[in-house]
């Protein structure tokens, strides 16, 4: 019992559920942080110091992970919504596999764009 039981998954579906929770919370956390960040940009100097920390090659790994969270959460969210409409329960393994592939593709493409944007 308790919160830890969310992670006692028995199948890939349980794992997806656990990740949906975690990524959702991460996204929410990030959103709040992001809003704090934006509201704190009161002067030009602050903007430059902060962006010099966050927009950098070392930080790109976090951005990439954020993309993963976002893409996974979105794609998996759509998968859940499909099933919640009562559709495709018998094909749920296929749907899960497809959404996993889409999520990974989305992550790679997103990271690539990010990397290119930073690259020059």
């Amino acid at each position, binding site marked *: 019992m308790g919160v830890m039981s*969310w992670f006692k998954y028995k199948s890939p579906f349980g794992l997806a559920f656990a990740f949906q929770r975690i990524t959702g919370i991460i996204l929410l956390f990030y959103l709040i942080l992001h809003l704090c960040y934006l509201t704190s940009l009161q002067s030009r100097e602050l903007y430059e110091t902060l962006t010099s920390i966050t927009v950098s090659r070392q930080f790109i790994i976090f951005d990439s992970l954020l993309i993963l969270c976002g893409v996974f959460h979105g794609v998996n969210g759509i998968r859940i919504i499909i099933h919640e409409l009562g559709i495709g329960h018998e094909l749920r393994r296929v749907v899960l596999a497809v959404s996993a592939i889409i999520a990974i593709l989305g992550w790679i493409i997103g990271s690539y764009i990010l990397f290119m944007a930073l690259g020059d």
Partner: protein
Amino acid sequence: MKFVIRRFKDDKSFWQSFEVPVKKGMTLLDGLFYIRENIDPSLAFRASCRMGICGSCAVKVNGRPRLACETQLSKFKKEIKIEPLDNFRVIRDLVTEFEGFFAKHKKVKPYLIANTDYENPIEQLQTPEELKKYYIFTLCIKCGSCLSVCPSSATLESSLGPAALVSAYRFNADSRDRGKEERLKIVSESFGVWRCHSAMECSEVCPKQIEPAKAIQLLRRETLR
């Protein structure tokens, strides 16, 4: 084969191993009976039909709920780990408290609500197509596997849980039933269908392949109509 069993006695819990000789075609339940009959007569577990229809014998095997009587030992290698179901309070060894589970089932009014006369029953018609709409959901054996893996039942004990909702849908989808409104009211209250987060574990572990998750979503759709 080594059976590693999580035992509970006098509020103490401990792991105990037993060596069980395995023959071809032997099931996990046969193994448990072997232990009870030859090694430790006090090993408590439930079993009745030994053919997967009574729902007594669900236990957690290597982390996943299974019906002991339907589980072939040949599927496993050297060791097998057996625990009582999660999300149920343990009474003794592998025996868990089911009163609450049955009480939830009772809550959804799982009986046909129709205008029939006890003394003079008549034959109500139902075509095979109408039967097919709900038949799969009548197959629930109330083994509790689904509830034991349901994350929302784990954190909120008062959630109705998959099996009860399956029952609710089974009657709502029955062409002879006239109690849909009553039942929808019950399941749309706070501990019913809206507690489901589509983790789909229930559909994965259900030994009768009932797809409880689907029943819940179909029920949800009805509540929105």
